[in-house]
């Protein structure tokens, strides 16, 4: 009787702990978005990625549809080569989709926003997104603004 109670309480304890682990995995972290039910990877070249990091979100219309899987420096074109992993369920993105690096909020994380194009063909595994827009770099923005305004003065 006493030993039975012992077993029950240990069983409860372990179950609660496993529930807590599930809570941490599913409710707290990105574990659920990790178990991709398949995905495909497309490539995008950016002139400047700003502060984009691996595993950054990739979204379309504000909805996350994938993640940045790797970022490399392309020694041929002297630009950044970004691999984007997109969930397999979003397999009907037009080939002329454009990608831009955006910022969540004023100081938030960088993410990639995709904007759909109009062609009928869809992006496949290994395709390249041709239309890209680099991250806004504050210094460059300011110098551009100064340059333009001095142009007008002339």
């Amino acid at each position, binding site marked *: 009787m006493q030993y039975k109670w012992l*077993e029950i309480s*240990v069983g409860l*304890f372990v179950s609660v*702990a496993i529930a*807590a682990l599930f809570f941490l995995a599913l409710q*707290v*972290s990105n574990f659920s978005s990790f178990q991709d039910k398949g995905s495909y990877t497309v490539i995008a070249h950016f002139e400047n990625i700003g502060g984009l990091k691996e595993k950054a979100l990739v979204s379309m219309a504000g909805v996350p549809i994938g993640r940045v899987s790797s970022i490399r420096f392309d020694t041929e074109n002297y630009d950044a080569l970004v691999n984007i992993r997109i969930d397999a369920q979003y397999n009907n993105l037009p080939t002329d989709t454009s990608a831009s690096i955006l910022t969540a909020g004023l100081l938030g994380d960088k993410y990639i926003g995709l904007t759909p194009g109009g062609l009928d063909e869809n992006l496949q595994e290994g395709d390249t997104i041709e239309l890209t827009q680099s991250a806004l770099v504050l210094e460059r923005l300011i110098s551009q603004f100064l340059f333009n305004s001095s142009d007008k003065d002339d």
Partner: protein
Amino acid sequence: MIIFFQHIGQACLKSIEKLGRASLFFIAIISSIGYVLLRPNLLIKQLFSVGVLTFWLIAISGLFVGMVLGLQGVYTLSTFGAESSLGIMVAASLVRELGPVVGALLFAGRAGSALTAEIGLMKATEQLSGMEMMAIDPLKYIIAPRFFAGFISLPLLVAIFSAMGIIGGYLAGVELLHVDSGAYWSQMQASIDFDADIVNGMIKSIIFAWLVSWIALFEGYDAVPTSAGISRATTRTVVNSSFAILIFDFLLTALMFGVA
């Protein structure tokens, strides 16, 4: 002056010798794993006294630590207008640091000290010797099940601590101070990485579990078998475990989240 250096030398030799004995002790425990697996009732009994009896302490502490994080987080973040990041702040600090570290410190205070006192008292009352004379190895029968119970319990308790803390942060931040509930969870999910954060936190808790169980049992087994000796051993368990936890936390954090 020479005597001073001599004392330092002696102290060093003593601690090296103690570390050696502790290592042999640990090896003996590990090689008893088969014995423990064949006697699950021993393990269950210890899981009860080491794990279940620490449950409420951990759950309630976790809840309140999370609530404090929620309050402080809102006050600090609102100066930047970034209350929506509260979930990230609460979850990241709990899962990466506070869960494993505070959980392990509480565990050392509650379960570790109890283990040391129990083993020390068993030694003082000749229960360990008695067992040896009955041809039963106390390392296998007494020490090993307690070690594995501690080793299993702490990671579970840390998971409970973190989960309760995140719920506590929710209660304080969302229910009390009206941070947006959707932002709390979604920002958290977007930023907390399963591999980098949750798994690393769990690895920390496993290493702390090994440290605390090992220290507590060895101090008990090595205690001078008198009341003064046991009380000193119990103190040493709490002090040494705390140092070990904090030092290893630094090393592990540097290793996992990078120094560069």
